[in-house]
Every structure is written in structure tokens, then in C-alpha cells.
């Protein structure tokens, strides 16, 4: 029993706790860093919108620039793969001029897999 008492010493316990914490975090990252961003596009009534274009904007030092775009499937779902980012914005638009508000995306680590809340399209103004 006394052999392991040194583990309770603060000079051992604190670095050990840090190592366990950092190790655990990195293991979690290793299993969740495919860069998969998924979500849905819906209209004002909550119905899915197929064929909508979803654009991902990447942050550079000054502003946001378009990085990638995809189109929603028949169920209104979209998906980006291999996104090596930790911050950005998402926006959906349709051919008839409907547009969603830009959704801010902030992740806990680069390429984190994330399920976004639905992007809601608003009717074109005017």
C-alpha cells in the first residue's frame, strides 16, 4: 500500500492528472476528427428543402471567404467531409432567391465532427 503513496504527492498527482486529462482529450479527438459537418436545410414552415446550396465560409485573418459548397439531398440534408477547420460560417440559398442567416460554427478542435442545427431559409425580400 505504501508503495503507491507517492502517487498522492502533489508533484506527482498534478502532472499525472494533467497527463490523463490531455491523453483522454487526444483519444477523444482521434475518434472524432473526420471533419464531418452535417445538418439540414428547412423552410419557414419546418419542411426540408432539397436542392438548396449550402456554402461553408472559412475565416481568414480579416473576413470570411467561401471555402466549399454542397447541395442538399431529397431529405434536405447536407454534409461536408474532410473539413480541416475549427471556425467558420454556414449559409444556405436556393435558386429562387431564398437565403438563410449565416450560422457561426465554432468547434472544440480542428476537423471535429459536428451535427448542426437546421438552417432555416427566409423568403426573398422585396
Amino acid at each position, binding site marked *: 500500500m505504501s508503495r503507491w503513496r507517492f502517487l498522492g504527492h*502533489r508533484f506527482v498527482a498534478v502532472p499525472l492528472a494533467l497527463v490523463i486529462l490531455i491523453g483522454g482529450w487526444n483519444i477523444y479527438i482521434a475518434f472524432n476528427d473526420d471533419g464531418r459537418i452535417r445538418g439540414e436545410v428547412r423552410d419557414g414552415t419546418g419542411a426540408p428543402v432539397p436542392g438548396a446550396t449550402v456554402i461553408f465560409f472559412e475565416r481568414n*485573418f480579416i473576413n470570411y471567404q467561401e471555402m466549399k459548397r454542397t447541395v442538399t439531398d431529397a431529405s434536405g440534408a447536407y454534409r461536408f467531409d474532410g473539413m480541416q477547420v*475549427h471556425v467558420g460560417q454556414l449559409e444556405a440559398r436556393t435558386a429562387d432567391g431564398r437565403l438563410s442567416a449565416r450560422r457561426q460554427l*465554432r468547434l472544440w478542435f480542428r476537423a471535429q465532427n459536428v451535427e448542426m442545427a437546421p438552417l432555416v431559409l427566409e423568403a426573398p425580400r422585396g
Partner: protein
Amino acid sequence: MRRAPSWPRHAIMIAVSVLMLIPFYWVLKTSLTGENIYAYPPRIVPVDPHLYNYVDVWYLIPFPRYLLNSLIVTAMAICGNLLFNTAAGYALTKQFPGRRWIVLLLLSCMLIPFQATIIPAYLITAQLGVLNTHLGIALPLLSTIICIFIFKASFESVPRSLIDAARVDGLGEWRIVVRILLPLSKSAVATNVILTFIWSWNAFMWPLIVTRSPEMQTLPLGLARFLSVLEDTTGALYAFVVLVLVPGLAIFLMAQKEFIRGLTSGATKG
């Protein structure tokens, strides 16, 4: 006879502690919110705190690289300090011709500011061929005079008879230091470790001079680079400051008892 209540003293100490902790709190709060530090009226409680500024710091600049460089340099400086200061401190406990002059020389060297020695230090480092290396950055911190005196004071407080007994038992000088003196000088070791850690971790001017490539930069240099690259990132900047501060604070909090004991024993017996 009734003793005076201790709560007024404690109340004053708590008030002073809170005052001294306000800057730390402000840095932490700004790192969690990113709000403008000039906002008026200032908010005491953080609004919508989050940790994303720390994520930004990790990815927007090569923070892991700076951290690794700082860790390597600090580890080298601590190892060098323990080795050289122990040897020098032990030597100064001995009686030999010129000892007094060496002590005077060391004391007078403490009066020379580091800035005045930068050019010769740079030339020596260049001659050794260790510019732009971890060893080159750690070189001036491999031994510090004040820590030599802390070891000297600590070693002198060990009873002479103990060392004589060890010598009679056949222990050599190094084994006397390692087996007898160092285990009895834990507070001096802790003081050395903490002081060297703080000096090495916060060193700015020497690493700035001796490093040539961004890959060799340490955290304080990274902070300066961060400021020059990113202007409108108050939250990320303060998050960077917190990340630089945390290891030093952690080391100090872990070893504060030994640190204070080591400093006071150095002050009274030097």
C-alpha cells in the same frame, strides 16, 4: 488575558489578496469573453463565457511548437541549474585559498544587469555554435548566482558532523552531495526549480536575440508575434496570456511552501 480577535487581520489580508488578484481575474475574464477591455462601464461578471478563444490560440499560431520549445529550454535550464549550482554551492562551503574573493566576485557580478552582458554572451554562444538552438537559448540560465547562494546557505545549515560521518563511511564528495546534502535541502531545490522555471519561462530578450527561425521561438516571443500578426483579437490574446501563465502558477502553487522556506533560509543564513 483575552487574545485580540484574528478576524480583522484576516479581513485585511483577504481584501489585499482580492485587490492583487483583480488583474489575474480580469485577464481570465477577458480571455473567456473577448470583450473590449476599454468598455465602459466595465462588466465584473463575464457575459456568455466560452473557451473558443483558447481553441483559436492553439490553431491560429503554432502554439504547440512554442510550448514545446519553452518546455525544452526550461527543462534544460532547471537541470543545468541543479547541477552547476549544487556543485558551486557545495564548493563555496569549503575552505580554500581565494574563497572570499570568489564570493565577492560572484556578489559583484549580481550587480551587472543582463542587458550589459548580452554582446559577450552572444559572441560566446556563436563561438560555441549553439545559436538558434535550445541549448543556446538556455545557456545563460544554466547557472544563476542567487541560486548558488541559496544552495550554499542550505548546505551550510547541515551539521558538519553528518558530512564527516559520511566521509568516514567512505562516501566521495559527489555522493555526499547527492545522498546527504540534497535530500536535506529540499527547500533549496524547490526554490531553484521555481526561480529557474519563472526566469526561463518568461525570458524574452535573450531568446529574441539568439533565435533566428520561427520554429525555435518560445512562448513569450510567440506572444509578441501573435500581437504583430493579429490585431483585433482581444479574447485570443488574453487566452494566450493565460496559457503562458498557467504552468508557472501551477508550479508555484505546488511548491510554494518549499519555495518560501528556501528563500527565507537563504536570507538568514547567507
